[in-house]
């Protein structure tokens, strides 16, 4: 694989400080902050106060309006039409995850890439930043350009040849 990494991506310390920076830049993005506060550090929900969130279920076109009460480890979902709504809401309030897609710069222009699996939502910006650091020589479909991005156990791979 002809990958020339101008900056290494495995600097945990740096990632840590960067993460702080990102958190700061996200200060206006209240929604994310709220969620990330709950979901940070691997599902540890040590909230003492009860929080209520409203969301629309995306599991089917029904689009049930869900009300989710979070009280410590206790998550209560109402408004759901079926059990899939409960599963959806619980994941959204405890550890929401997303596949991240972006593009990486190479000497031949930009190439699209993605995380091979969903990563915690609060790491989306960090993950994009990790890809942004790269300046690669050439890549092809399927190349892994970052292994275990941000310690998530998920890789970033190239999704196109041109």
């Amino acid at each position: 694989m002809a990958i020339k990494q101008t900056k290494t991506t495995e600097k945990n310390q740096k990632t840590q400080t960067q993460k702080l920076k990102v958190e700061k830049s996200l200060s206006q993005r209240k929604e994310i902050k709220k969620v990330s506060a709950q979901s940070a550090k691997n599902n540890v929900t040590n909230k003492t106060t009860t929080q209520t969130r409203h969301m629309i279920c995306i599991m089917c076109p029904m689009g049930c309006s869900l009300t989710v009460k979070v009280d410590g480890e206790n998550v209560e979902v109402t408004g759901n039409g079926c059990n899939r709504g409960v599963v959806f809401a619980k994941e959204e309030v405890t550890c929401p995850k997303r596949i991240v897609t972006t593009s990486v710069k190479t000497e031949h222009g930009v190439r699209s890439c993605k995380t091979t699996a969903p990563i915690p939502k609060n790491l989306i910006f960090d993950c994009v930043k990790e890809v942004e650091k790269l300046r690669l020589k050439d890549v092809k479909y399927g190349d892994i350009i970052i292994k275990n991005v941000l310690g998530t156990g998920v890789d970033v791979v190239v999704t196109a040849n041109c």
Partner: protein
Amino acid sequence: MKTDVLVIGGGPAGMSAALSASENGSKVVIVERDEILGGILNQCIHNGFGLHYFKEELTGPEFAHRFREMVEADKNITVFTSALVTKIGEKKVEVMGALGVQTIEAKAVILAMGCRERTAGNISLCGTRPAGVLTAGTVQKMVNIDGKMVGKDVVILGSGDIGLIMARRLTLEGAKVHAVLEINKTSSGLRRNIMQCLEDFNIPLLYNTTIFEVVGKDRVEGVWFGQVDENMKPIDNTKKFLKCDTVVLSVGLIPEMEMADFVTKSRVTNGAVVNEFYQTDKQWLFSCGNILHVHDLVDNVALEAKLAGKFASLYAQGKLPPRTKKIPIVAGEGFSYVLPSKVYEGAGQVEVKFRLKEKVVRKTLTAKCGANILGKRFILAGVPGEMMSLTFDKSGATGRISLEIE
């Protein structure tokens, strides 16, 4: 040049149709106007493709890549890229581009040119016409393929899926997406996209709202926007100014049917009227994918094109079942359209596709011929934004088949 089946367009519909036509024994030629196969998928770098077809979640380029590899491996398929069809005639098309100027003759032709985006001109966007007013697809191409940033302060008009996807993409690239404005009271975008592209990033989605006027001489300087009344007319006292340098339009798609204007078209889908073989009223001309009707999932495009490719191939070989009595299929109350719109009398299963006019909850959809129920399907919920299907046995049908909500 001569071939059995000629496919116009090398996107997901064209590739899938070509593979299927080849599988069914025909020599196939694909004519694609862009430099590579894949169509618009190449610029859709986001995920969410392939769940039905490949049973895994892929990005657009990956979906295209898989099909491209299959097409390239298929010896019965010849691909011409950078080739533009300029005219479609009876069993022949004229092309220009990489092939030079020439005519390709075919026993069957498949329309798979997809759709184009509605433009500022199509929606009569008022104000000036400066740099920075772009369709979502153009923005997608500039950012994802060319690696260029279109602006820093963005307003998105229309909440179509590409608009939502680009809201997220531009945000991740450092732009501030101030709002997505939707003139209708609901979004045509998928719920999942609204959540993952807007709500995740706290981007407001304003319904019943549109741009009244674009401001800026050379570059967009801002927009006057506000609410509309029930007739979609601007309500003046809701007018507000928003400073921005870019306006992204995601205001709908139009099947690219102008070159085949000689076939009968549907007033609802703007695509051709087809029978169960995806055959237009010109027997040698077939249609599938977004040029037939705008789909929401590429998986469905590929599956539909597979059928069209098969039937076109059989037609080219003179093996299409002989035509019996024509039976129309009509969309009953609550449906905006159903497709195909006719079948032929006889045994067999038919899958029809349709869209609902409004959201329905806990209903049974039936295909009926008189009092005779040919097929039915219970749905928990259905929305206009989601294309649905129903499979039924046509052998019991003697006359008009209608789709009903019960």
